[in-house]
């Protein structure tokens, strides 16, 4: 999820947060508060009294709720929940194939993504293809469970081109490793 898409994922919730008022009036009130910018603006929200959706950490993230399983050349394909970079499927490669002339890195960062077809979580290895200039097509940056550099295997900014003859980043694949749960 590059940008938070309020329309796609939160209109109902926003309304609830606003205590039942319409989204428009809530937003305009919110806007007024922000533009005035008092010393201690109080956002007129309290914990939402939603009808008990699954709020456990294992519940579906915004990405997972809208992910699809049909088109591997789109950022919202389910395996891409933590990918960062150009999709190799748009660069002449495939979901687990590097484009001609590039080389898959033997190591990678990983993600745990939910397949919408069976609702199960799978471990995905985001293996970079290396040794060509940046492909430039289909740039995605999804960040489910993506963390920082002190946990490098879960960080998607590192150039994961180790053990390849060139460390130049070309694109990223999303290789299915196995079921995660």
């Amino acid at each position, binding site marked *: 999820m590059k940008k938070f898409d309020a329309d796609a994922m939160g209109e109902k919730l926003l309304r609830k947060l606003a205590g039942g008022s319409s989204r428009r009036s809530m937003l305009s009130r919110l806007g007024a508060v922000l533009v005035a910018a008092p010393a201690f603006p109080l956002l007129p929200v309290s914990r939402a009294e939603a009808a008990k959706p699954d709020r456990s950490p294992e519940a579906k993230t915004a990405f997972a709720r809208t992910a699809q399983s049909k088109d591997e050349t789109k950022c919202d394909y389910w395996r891409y929940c933590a990918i960062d970079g150009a999709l190799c499927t748009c*660069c002449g*490669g495939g979901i687990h194939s590097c484009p001609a002339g590039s080389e*898959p890195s*033997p190591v990678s960062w990983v*993600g*745990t993504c939910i397949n919408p077809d069976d609702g199960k979580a799978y471990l995905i290895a985001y293996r970079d293809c290396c040794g060509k200039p940046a492909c*430039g097509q289909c740039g995605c940056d999804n960040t489910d469970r993506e963390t920082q550099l002190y946990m490098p*295997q879960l960080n998607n900014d590192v150039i994961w081109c180790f053990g390849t003859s060139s460390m130049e980043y070309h694109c990223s694949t999303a*290789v299915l490793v196995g079921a995660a749960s």
Partner: protein
Amino acid sequence: MSNRVVRGFFAATAMGFTLCAAVTTHAAPADTMAALEPETSDVVTMEPPKPNWFFIDGGWDMPGTSIFDGETGKMKGMVETRRLADMAIDPAGRYYYVAETIWSKGDRGTRQDMVSVYDTRELKLVTEITIPDRILIGSRKNNFIISDDGKTGFVYNLSPASSVNIVDLVKRKFVANVELPGCASMMPNPGVGFSALCGDGSLATVKLTGTKADITHSAPFFSATDDPIFDNFTYDRKKKETTFLSYTGQVWTARLGPAPTISAPFSIQAAAGIRPGETKPLELNWYPGGRQPMALHRATGHLFVLMHMGEYWSHKASGTEVWEVDLATQKVVKRRPLEEPMNNIEVTQSDKPLLIMDGEKGTALVIDLATWEEKHKIEKAGGSTITVADPS
């Protein structure tokens, strides 16, 4: 996170996948791996270049020349062309050649000029042919050309003295640097060597015998200062002809050979029924412009030209229309407006030709010439020169 975890993480298999239980427990509290077969990473092999493919140079900001299938609009792969490199295609389709200049430390260190050879199926570097210096300019199609038989490469240099590096592409070695005083912008001249345009308004013909170059000049036929010919002209390998276009819109055809003959020019504006372009200021008219302002479909002899409305000396302005010129009848047979101005134009040499264009934003358009239907609009495809597999 213990040392073991980091180390364990690197226990990658030879097949190339990463897996480490200690890591996966961080990623998600996984219990056991299911019986699912893990996928294996592999590398795609390509076909040799096809007539409906196009090659688009990313230009200054996007190193690399992307290969697209014009039919599907899909990217097929990429040839490594750094900033200011020039790419040419082996006429037999076996190799992509890249004339490039690399410093050993990026922008400093030792200068290295070479023709890098890539095979077209695996897109792997086959070898590097070291050459003397070459020109640094970019966005030109005629600074690195290949003879029709595919055996010889010509790499232009400006040091700032003008010369050409001759490269034997069979033996893969540099042959000689020949001076080309006052001329540039080369075209093959089969059986002779090559020809080039000159600042005195002539066409130079360079007859090569081994490493010896014998230069002859045509009579001057254009003004290099008052009405220059765009140096991204087109060459028709089949007819051994070059089509030239000048800033005002004059069109010439040169038949190559030991003593090339150059046709009388005609005006592209007159061919469209409007007054010819002029060099004077304040004469608002349609003018050709852009970086690669024209493309020739060889079989039909139709020339496609990016045109814009403006005054003279607006030759770099992007085209807002495409004019289709029948070279035989010297008539503009179609004018098509463009939604966005375009800088570079090329046409595939297939039976159902596709017109390819790109503009400053790096968006490529693929147009079906039969219907003028926009088949594909590809963002971030590249903003510089376009090449097709058959460089006619």
